[in-house]
């Protein structure tokens, strides 16, 4: 007779779920500066530390720049390190983000995705993380609270893999996920410890074996270090797969870099990040009932970009719509759109494609919006072309 596994169910907000995961990961150092909508994450963690439930150094820094700098030092000293930020806070961290990845510091950071000023806005969009797109971090995106919890645990597994040793961000949509209570299944502390045991950081600061950190490399060596980094981050996909495989064994939940939904025979495929993926899936399922051949591809990993997986999914689509919750102003489209366009072109796929910029500053993307979008796509396929390449979806004209 198979052993019955006890399911632990909780009702938590996204922020609380991330904090709970970080606590179960038994982090050693948390350095952070409060910013909406992530504040609850570090509030919870500070409470865990104060109540003696988590044995960690909780360092309240004087800015995000300092917070991430403290994390960098802590990670190099061999501590399991966690931080969390959003929006302007992530922007303030920016220079250290590059340094943390290049110095191979396996920091895990939750980003409660929020719009950038100005005008001042505290609500969800992806402008903050898209600014950090090219910093050499691995960027994961959660669709719901369960995923925010799971991906936080997986982030430690991925970051600390000796093959890569890279920082990982776990993105959860501000307010939509950070402040919404959802039921989720959590692992036991023992299961988490078995999944992500503390392993020594191989290059940790050690007085008996001194190493130089953050050295200068001039024109005769700098490029070789960058070439090395180019290789290292491309090792992340197999590391992700391994982390996902062992996670599925204890949790029963499976994560792919890209999660396809009804894409096999889909004529129209919509690509998106974050909580919108669930909205799109819900409506796609409904429209499937009316025989609309529509599919959704949600990216769990945005960097490194799962190019081959995306190319395979899109190979036979008649129409590809990209959902961008950020924009590259003055560029050829939103960040996800330009990635998808490049993927299509590089892989010889020619299909009608358009960018749908939506949800900036927390503008709701409701089920009715998703349905309207799908109708637009169906009409465009009937006509055989889009009437624009960049749509500002839901903007008041």
């Amino acid at each position, binding site marked *: 007779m198979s052993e019955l596994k006890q399911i632990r169910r909780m009702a938590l907000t996204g922020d609380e779920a991330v904090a709970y995961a970080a606590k179960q990961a038994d982090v050693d150092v948390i350095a952070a500066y409060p910013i909406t909508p992530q504040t609850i994450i570090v509030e919870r963690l500070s409470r865990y530390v104060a109540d003696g439930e988590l044995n960690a150094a909780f360092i309240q820094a004087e800015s995000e720049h300092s917070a991430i700098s403290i994390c960098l030092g802590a990670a190099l000293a061999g501590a399991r390190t966690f931080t969390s930020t959003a929006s302007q806070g992530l922007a303030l961290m920016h220079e250290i983000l590059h340094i943390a990845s290049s110095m*191979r510091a396996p920091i895990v950071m939750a980003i409660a995705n929020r719009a950038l000023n100005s005008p001042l806005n505290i609500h969800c969009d992806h402008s903050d993380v898209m600014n950090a797109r090219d910093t050499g971090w691995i960027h994961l995106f959660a669709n719901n609270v369960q995923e925010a919890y799971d991906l936080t645990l997986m982030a430690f597994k991925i970051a600390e893999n000796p093959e890569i040793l890279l920082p990982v961000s776990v993105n959860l949509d501000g307010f939509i996920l950070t402040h919404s209570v959802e039921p989720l299944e959590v692992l036991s502390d023992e299961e988490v410890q078995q999944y992500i045991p503390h392993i020594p950081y191989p*290059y940790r600061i050690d007085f008996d074996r001194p*190493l130089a950190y953050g*050295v200068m490399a001039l024109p005769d060596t700098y*490029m070789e*270090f960058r*070439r*090395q980094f180019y290789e*290292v981050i491309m090792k992340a996909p197999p590391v992700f797969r391994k982390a996902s495989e062992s996670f599925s064994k204890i949790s029963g939940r499976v994560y792919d870099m890209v999660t396809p939904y009804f894409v096999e025979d889909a004529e129209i495929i919509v690509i998106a990040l974050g909580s919108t993926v669930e909205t799109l899936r819900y409506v796609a399922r409904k429209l499937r009932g009316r025989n609309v051949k529509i599919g959704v591809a949600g990216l769990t990993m945005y960097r490194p970009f799962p190019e081959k997986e995306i190319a395979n999914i899109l190979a036979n689509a008649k129409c590809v719509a990209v959902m961008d919750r950020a924009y590259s102003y003055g560029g050829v489209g939103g960040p996800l759109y330009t990635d998808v366009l490049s993927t299509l072109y590089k892989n010889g796929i020619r299909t009608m494609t358009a960018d749908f910029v939506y949800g900036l500053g927390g503008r709701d993307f409701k089920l009715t919006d998703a349905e309207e979008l799908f109708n637009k796509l169906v009409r465009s396929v009937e006509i055989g072309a889009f009437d624009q390449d960049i749509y500002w979806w839901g903007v008041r004209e």
Partner: protein
Amino acid sequence: MTEIDVNKIVKGEFSWKTLPPAAMIKVLTSLEYKTGTWRIEKPIIDQSKCTRCLLCWIYCPDMAVKRIDGGNVEIDYEFCKGCGICAEVCPPKAIKMVEE
């Protein structure tokens, strides 16, 4: 972890594949760093003109001028960076800077 001799990096004897991750490199002392490879011009001492005043020995910022038996001086080319201070301070102009 990859151990690579810093001096090999300085000489350009490396590829991106052999570099340690993130340039986390074994720390060497100044004795182990062979800074002589930085040089563009090398000092040559004309021992017949040298008066053994030792000004070059005093002024050399890298202690690359060594006193040898008989009161003579010689240049330690493993460390001399070719700055030319010795040639500049030499009263009888016994030291010439010659292109490498």
